[in-house]
Each structure stands twice: as structure tokens, then as C-alpha cells.
């Protein structure tokens, strides 16, 4: 049986089209359509139920050392209440998952992808070392994301925290709409925005209070379809599409979170070796010159030869172009390079471009 989030009945009330995703019944879109929801987030503010995401708490004397062993970024750089984008790798450098690490006063929390929660939790337990306590609290937490240039104004109406001084990728433990929560300035859209974690029993009230507070900014619920487009327009990777156990962070353009000078972590040896030998393929951004949606696993061609494959693609309503991500062999990854995508047997021209596709996002 697929799970329902605490907000499920509200989605139905708003006319959501519900699909099963990662074991949850989630809204893929509401009545006005995916492009309209993308526009709402880019122009004012949208509200997302992302309660399907997983949360793993790590406590104990050796928590930092343990997290630094299983993740590729350097968690020792985190200050109290800071948030870090990171990933876990296998010994061979392939990616287990990408995630966020929250450093809170009494614990760390890892926010992982819904489709990977069980796999990640097993992986974390399997590699447990030192004095740590690990808890998968995913089923008890409702996560809402408020995203868009007006997000701060909406959330500020509901909290005493001075949001004007809260920096991107920082969090706090506070109350929003009188509900105890973790509030962070984070998101997956490129816009300014916040993510709020509350206990399930408060989820529905928080959802409705945010919608009421955001009325003057035309806030609307936004589904997973728009979320996927918003992240694609920013070239944010999606696990299962752009990154997986067969790709490494170095290939995916995530070397900025891969701290190879860190003492010891799972995957370090393989990643160092890959760097020394040279990275043979790269995740690129491309725009279609000819019409057509490049979809996952379509072939990328140069001069009649296969040079790679598409990992994500769609029509971008924000830049009004067909866009995609994919892996290509070096040196075809350089921007300006013309390539072709095999779209259902027809080679359609495209050009490699620099990320992000959408350059006017509001995030701080």
C-alpha cells in the first residue's frame, strides 16, 4: 500500500492529480497545469508538500566523524545551524544518494531522497562506526517547501525569527504559526525559499496557515511535476535520472562538494584515482536548436557517433526552450559545441550551454 502524507486530503481538495512516487501518493500537479505552477514559483511563491523525503537523525559522541566518513563533503566545516549539500558514495565512487546535512545543537539530520530512504538507512547502518545513534524518522515528519521571490514575506508573517538576516543554507529551531519546527533557507528551485520540518500531526495546519498567509502573494500549491522542471532549469541533479550508482560526483559536476583532501571517506580512493586518470565524461547542459523534448536515455550523437546519453529533459517554460542534461565523452562537453539528440529515430540539433538554463532566479 502506498503511503499518504499528512497533506493528502488537502491535495485532493485542491484538485491534484495524484500519482504514486517512491511509495507515496503524491500530487504531480493541480488544476492549472505544470507550467502555470512553475511560473507561480518564479514570479511570486509556491507551496510544496515534500513529506516523502527521508530524514535520518545521527546523534552521539562520534556523530561528526561518522558523517564525515559516509559523506563526501566536509561536515567538519559546518557551524551550529548550518546546512550542507553533500552525497554518499560507494567504495567505487558511484553515488548512493545526494542529501542535505543539518547541524543542530543535539544532533545531525540527513535529508535524503524519498526513493532512497530505505536503501540509505541500510547503508548508513551497515557502515556504522564509533559511538553513534541512528534513527530513521521519515515516517513522522512532514516537510513543506515555500519557494519563490515572495517566500520570505509569507514565512515572516508566521514567525518571530528575523528572516532578513537568515542566510541561504542556514537553519533554526523555532515556531512557525505557533508550531515547533526546523526552518531552513533551502530549496530545490533556484528561488529564494524555505523548507519547514514539523511533526505529522501539525502538518495539515501548517499547510493551511501558509496558504492563508500567502494569499496576498497569490500563493498556490505546486506539485512534483513543476518541482522537477524548476530543478532542471537550474541544473540541480535528480537521483535516478542524472546521478546514480553508475555515475560519480566528479562526472556529475559535483566536484565542489567532493572534498578529496578530507582524511578518509567511503569512495575516496576510487574518486582520487578517477581524478588522477582524468574524468572521461561529463554531465552537460544542452538546449535544443530543433524542436523536441530530449528524454531520459535518448542517445547523444556527434558526427554520426554515439558520444553519450540524455539523463533529464523537458520544455522549459521559464526560458521558452527545450532543454536537457546528459553525459557526453570529453571533449564534447565544452559549451558552444553542437551535438544531436536521437529523438525517436530523428537526429535533432542541440548545443552545449553553461548552467543554469534559467539565470534570473532569486535565491540568496
Amino acid at each position, binding site marked *: 500500500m502506498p503511503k499518504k502524507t499528512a497533506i493528502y486530503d488537502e491535495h485532493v481538495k485542491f484538485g491534484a492529480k495524484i500519482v504514486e512516487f517512491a511509495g507515496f501518493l503524491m500530487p504531480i*500537479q493541480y488544476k492549472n*497545469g*505544470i507550467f502555470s505552477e512553475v511560473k507561480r514559483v518564479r514570479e511570486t511563491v509556491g507551496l510544496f508538500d515534500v513529506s516523502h523525503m527521508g530524514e535520518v537523525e545521527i546523534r552521539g559522541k562520534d556523530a561528526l566523524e561518522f558523517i564525515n566518513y559516509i559523506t563526501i563533503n566536509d561536515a567538519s566545516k559546518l557551524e551550529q545551524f548550518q546546512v550542507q549539500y553533500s552525497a554518499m558514495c560507494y567504495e567505487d565512487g558511484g553515488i548512493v544518494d545526494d542529501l542535505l546535512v543539518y547541524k543542530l545543537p543535539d544532533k545531525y539530520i540527513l535529508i535524503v531522497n524519498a526513493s532512497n530512504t530505505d536503501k540509505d538507512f541500510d547503508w548508513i547502518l551497515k557502515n556504522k562506526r564509533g559511538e553513534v545513534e541512528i534513527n530513521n524518522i521519515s515516517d513522522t515528519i512532514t516537510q513543506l517547501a515555500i519557494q519563490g521571490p515572495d517566500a520570505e514575506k509569507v514565512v515572516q508573517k508566521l514567525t518571530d525569527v528575523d528572516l532578513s538576516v537568515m542566510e541561504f543554507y542556514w537553519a533554526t529551531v523555532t515556531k512557525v504559526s505557533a508550531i515547533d519546527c526546523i526552518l531552513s533557507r533551502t530549496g530545490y528551485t533556484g528561488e529564494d525559499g524555505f523548507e519547514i520540518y514539523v511533526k505529522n500531526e501539525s502538518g495539515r495546519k501548517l499547510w493551511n496557515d501558509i496558504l492563508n498567509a500567502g494569499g496576498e502573494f497569490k500563493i498556490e500549491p505546486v506539485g512534483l511535476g513543476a518541482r522537477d*522542471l524548476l530543478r532542471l532549469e537550474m541544473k540541480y541533479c535528480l537521483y535516478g535520472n542524472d546521478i546514480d550508482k553508475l555515475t560519480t560526483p566528479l562526472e556529475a559536476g559535483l566536484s565542489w562538494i567532493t572534498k578529496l583532501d578530507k582524511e578518509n571517506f567511503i569512495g575516496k580512493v576510487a574518486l582520487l584515482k578517477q581524478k588522477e586518470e582524468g574524468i572521461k565524461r561529463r554531465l552537460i547542459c544542452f538546449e535544443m536548436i530543433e*524542436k523536441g*523534448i530530449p*528524454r531520459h536515455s535518448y542517445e547523444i550523437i556527434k558526427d554520426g557517433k554515439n558520444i553519450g546519453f540524455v539523463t533529464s529533459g523537458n*520544455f522549459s517554460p521559464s526560458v521558452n526552450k527545450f532543454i536537457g542534461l546528459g553525459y557526453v565523452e570529453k571533449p564534447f562537453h565544452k559549451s558552444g559545441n553542437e551535438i544531436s539528440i536521437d529523438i*525517436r529515430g530523428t537526429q535533432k540539433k542541440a548545443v552545449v550551454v553553461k548552467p543554469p538554463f534559467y539565470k534570473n532566479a532569486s535565491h540568496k
Partner: protein
Amino acid sequence: MNIPDNLKYTKDHEWVRVEGEFVFEGLTDYAQSQLADIVTFELKPVGSKFKKNDIFGSVEAVKAVVDLYMAVGGEIVEVNEKVMNTPEIVNSDPYGEGWIVKAKMDDADELNELLSPDDYKKLIEEQS
């Protein structure tokens, strides 16, 4: 799901409206909702002749790309330019402004092989 009584339907989620010797063809409400936001159509030009079930074009949408099949044999006499320029009207008005092509039928008897509104309703209930 909206399934007007005055139309005929195909297994490929297209509808047909008969006007004399001509038919108008489009995508059903169910089809547009499964495809999500429609981005572009590629259609064979006016004057193209097809047999029943031939592919006369394709539609690209956020969720999927699908081929379009002739519900009856005939010649395309008009392509809805409004749909070519603003394909999203197929999402908002699939049975009205969102018609896709107008064709001159070869054999009106082929209409008898199409699904009634009730049959089509059963089909999508089975599929969803």
C-alpha cells in the same frame, strides 16, 4: 473525466466529430490529462492521405510523446493552426478549440468501427 455524448472515440484516446463527409479529430480529456502540459505538435501537411490507423503526427508533452493515429481513412484538408501556435489549448479545451485536424473521409462506414462514449468510458476505467 469529460466524455461528450455527441462524439466517437478510438482506443488511442482520440475523438472524432462528423460533419457531412468530413471529420474533426482531436485528443480526449483523458489523453490531455495523462500527457500533462502539451508543448508541441508535429503533423503531416494538408493534402496528406492516410488509411485508418496510419500515423498522421505526434504530440510532445511534459509527461510523454505519443503518435497520433487516423481514426478513419481520408485526406487531411485542414490543420488547426491555433493548436500549432498555442498547443496548450488542447489542455484547456480538448473537444472545442483544441481540435487537431479536419479530414475528408474515404469511407463513412469506417465510423461504425469507432467506440461509443459508453465504450470509451469503460476503456479508460479499465486503464486507470
